């Protein structure tokens, strides 16, 4: 099928795939660290490891919920004036990245929160009795024991981000969603493009899923024993 596409369409596809992957990578680079941090705070507060700043934690939780409740297309459009006032542009890459980062952070936060809450609580007692600092608790205990769950959480978040990224064409972010829907579906000459774009998106998701699962499995010594 790819062969059936002429050169112009091929270059269009490559450009679109590049835009999607770029957005995915950039929003992941922003969402994963920040989202993980927020998810940690929410989870550890829940587990009573973290007792200060009750109101900040509550606020964070509410904000995360709100962002996840707003339909993403609406979120994108709401961000337009905000993006224009702060970054000087209301179209294209920047507002798309901002919108994806917002939903990405919220998604990662919830998933990480869940992964951490599922950890055996005796881990915290153990860390405490060994005299671990909060930082060491993260680095040497939580990130060790929960690393497979975290990787699966990240994988899930990436797949979500890809799905969200398919509609950023509405504000000029381009990508495979544009070629699939705007050109592919709506335009009278775009049928092949629609299917090929969708195929590419499927391939990306499968790859991400595969890598995530393999990595999570490999690192899970509890499951494998070696």
């Amino acid at each position, binding site marked *: 099928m790819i062969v059936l596409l002429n050169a112009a369409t091929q270059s269009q596809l490559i450009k679109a795939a590049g835009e999607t992957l770029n957005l995915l990578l950039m929003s992941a680079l922003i969402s994963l660290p920040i989202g993980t941090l927020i998810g940690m705070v929410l989870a550890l507060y829940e587990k009573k490891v973290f007792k200060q700043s009750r109101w900040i934690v509550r606020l964070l939780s509410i904000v995360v919920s709100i962002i996840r409740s707003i339909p993403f297309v609406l979120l994108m459009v709401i961000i337009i004036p905000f993006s224009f006032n702060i970054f000087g542009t209301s179209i294209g890459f920047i507002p798309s990245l901002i919108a994806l980062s917002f939903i990405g952070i919220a998604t990662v936060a919830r998933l990480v929160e869940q992964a951490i809450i599922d950890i055996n609580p*005796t881990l915290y*007692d153990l860390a405490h*009795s*060994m005299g671990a600092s909060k930082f060491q608790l993260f680095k*040497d205990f939580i990130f*060790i024991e929960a690393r497979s769950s975290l990787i699966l959480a990240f994988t899930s978040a990436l797949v979500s981000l890809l799905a969200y990224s398919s509609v950023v064409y509405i504000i000029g972010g381009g990508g495979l969603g544009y070629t699939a829907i705007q050109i592919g579906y709506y335009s009278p000459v775009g049928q092949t493009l629609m299917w090929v774009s969708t195929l590419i998106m499927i391939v990306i998701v499968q790859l991400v899923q595969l890598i995530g699962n393999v990595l999570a499995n490999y*690192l899970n010594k509890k499951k494998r024993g070696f």
Partner: protein
Amino acid sequence: MIKLEHITKSFNDKNNSVHALSDISLTIESGKIFGIVGKSGVGKSTLLKILSLSMRPDSGQYFLFNKDVTLLNSKEKKALLQETSFIYQNFSLLYNLNVLDNVALPLKLRGVDKVTRHQKARQMLEFVGLIHKSLNYPMTLSGGEAQRISIARALITNPKLFFLDEPTSALDEETSYEILKLIKRLHETFKPTIIFVSHQIQSIKYLCDRVMLLEDNKVKRIGPIQKLDTLNTGYDAVWGEYL
């Protein structure tokens, strides 16, 4: 060197006040093995938590290594804790680290370099007889082996004080005996103070110098082990090992 005077602790659950501990007093001399025995729910864990500085009593005094704990700030408490080690009923090893890394973990947290701490870890593993399992992961270990690893881990920091919280309750009789022998051996070799919580009378008898019996949140009896047989407890003999 460890002294509790009139310790009380209660928990508030909605309207009810649960008295976990009532007027507990005890003295433990350095280098001795002290047992705390009693039925489940009688307050042993709470007492252990207070002793290991995880919990604050509502009232009473606690002198650890002759220091009044209530006068210490958290930094000083932490420094005290550095001289202690904990052994749990469920071993608490990190599944994603191999045996060597698990044993070396306390030293890693203290900033000891890799070569040194791995060397020490191997020494400890030799002591407990499991050096051949260094590179295994905890999931592949039997219960007894896992507990021995956690003992090796507890030993690596040269603690002055050991807290043992039902260390053999999850193991069968034969394995339990092996573990108790190991504990006795480490006591003879390193001479730490040991606080040993259990509901298994035979274990208590085997290890301890002195023992305290908790019943109804209060100290029922306290005294040297030789007098254990004369403790009259009225405990249900079907499940427990009480007399």
